[in-house]
């Protein structure tokens, strides 16, 4: 119970100081007060990726037959569905909770290894407590890079901890040793599965960036905003990415025209 109390204290503090200082100039609300520390952790994670995760994912995706890979993914997704159900309900999204519940029971017949709804439009969105907090108006807070786990922020880190309490496995598995083993195995499985499925995309993303840290930070923050709004831009904001950056932007050399002359020629 002490842990739960701690979580709610953090939650309370986050809500209090959530109004992160906006960058007055431009860019979305990138609030990264401990950037130097984050960059150190990021470099460590990147080394882990290069030395361990990437080779593992490569072997996994080349050596393991596709149907088995699908089963692994289905199983990991199935394990997460109780958390999705709980958070959908907390967001008042009974439709998504219903779909996830159906998947949980139907796929439970085959221990989650087969996704019986695939291709039948039975899908549901992933929801977690970080998103639930976002839906209820909690800002992201400081951007954080967690060792091994990767990009996060204050809100989503709290969400991760709270989601442990929504997970039936937490109560089914007794003894801290077994529980940790399961957490680690699951985390590893999810990481390898994700890396393998996005193998080329992530390699290209890394190879083409001038600042990989800044690129992933931007991607993480935008993606989480999109997940919180379930892909629907907030009211009054027209951009699909939920920002107003494009509305404000005018090419400096052709202020009253949307296209006009090429900037390189006007100087």
């Amino acid at each position: 119970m002490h842990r739960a109390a701690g979580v709610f204290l953090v939650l309370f503090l986050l809500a209090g100081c959530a109004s992160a200082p906006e960058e007055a100039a431009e860019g979305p609300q990138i609030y990264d007060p401990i950037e130097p520390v984050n960059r150190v952790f990021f470099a460590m994670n990147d080394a882990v990726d290069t030395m361990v995760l990437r080779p593992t994912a490569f072997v996994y995706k080349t050596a393991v037959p596709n149907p088995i890979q699908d089963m692994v993914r289905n199983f990991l997704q199935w394990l997460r569905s109780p958390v999705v159900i709980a958070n959908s309900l907390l967001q008042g999204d009974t439709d998504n909770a219903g779909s996830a519940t159906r998947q949980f029971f139907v796929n439970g017949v085959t221990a989650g290894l087969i996704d019986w709804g695939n291709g039948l439009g039975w899908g549901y969105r992933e929801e977690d407590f970080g998103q639930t907090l976002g839906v209820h108006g909690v800002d992201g807070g400081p951007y954080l890079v967690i060792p091994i786990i990767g990009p996060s922020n204050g809100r989503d880190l709290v969400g991760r901890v709270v989601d442990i309490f929504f997970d039936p496995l937490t109560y089914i598995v007794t003894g801290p040793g077994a529980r940790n083993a399961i957490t680690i195995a699951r985390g590893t499985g999810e990481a390898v599965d994700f890396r393998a499925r996005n193998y080329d995309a992530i390699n290209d993303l890394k190879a083409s960036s001038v600042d990989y840290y800044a690129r992933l930070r931007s991607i993480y923050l935008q993606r989480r905003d999109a997940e919180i709004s379930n892909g629907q831009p907030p009211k009054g904001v027209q951009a699909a990415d939920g920002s107003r950056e494009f509305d404000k932007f005018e090419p400096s050399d052709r202020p009253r025209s949307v296209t006009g002359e090429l900037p390189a020629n006007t100087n």
Partner: protein
Amino acid sequence: MTVLQRAIFGLLVCISLATYPALADSKGENAEKFVAKLGETALEMVTNKELVGDARRESFRKLLQANFDMPWIGQFVLGKHWRRASPDQRETYLKLFEESIVFTYTNRFDEYSGQTFEVTGNTEADRFTMVKSRIVNPANPEGSVLVDWRLIEDSGDFKIVDVVIEGISMGITQRNEYSAVIDSNGGKIDSLLVKMEEILENLRKRA
């Protein structure tokens, strides 16, 4: 309702029925058609196994220049630093920017594995038109990727100014990344240009 009122009302309904679909048809639908056609052309290019190396890059560059407002995008991405950049820096920057896009995307052509492209709708957003689309992977129909296109219209011609993949704007991502490089190098624009050159060299090697 008098007969006259009825007649006027009827007339108004007729006019609105006649003009309304025409209006709805104009901008949004044309924008959709524009994106659908671009998707078709791009798919042809990706699946054309004869098209390799420099030829592939050249046709991609043409497609890019014809359909995207590259100077607009380049300026948006450089953001507040554009105003400070010298004419030489601007020119170098725009060249490097286009070049890195060409190499980044053509390098990924070979990863294509049968995905299809469909346009699903449009919305007006200020001076922009957003066209929604979906990339469907036949191997995993539930996991289709949502792509939004931001278009501006200039005398009947559309140009794309941003691509938003699953809520992630390419323009904003690049802008954040570039400004991080410039800011961490004491605001020097040349530091970004040097970095871009380096990355482009790597991309050339991977091509």
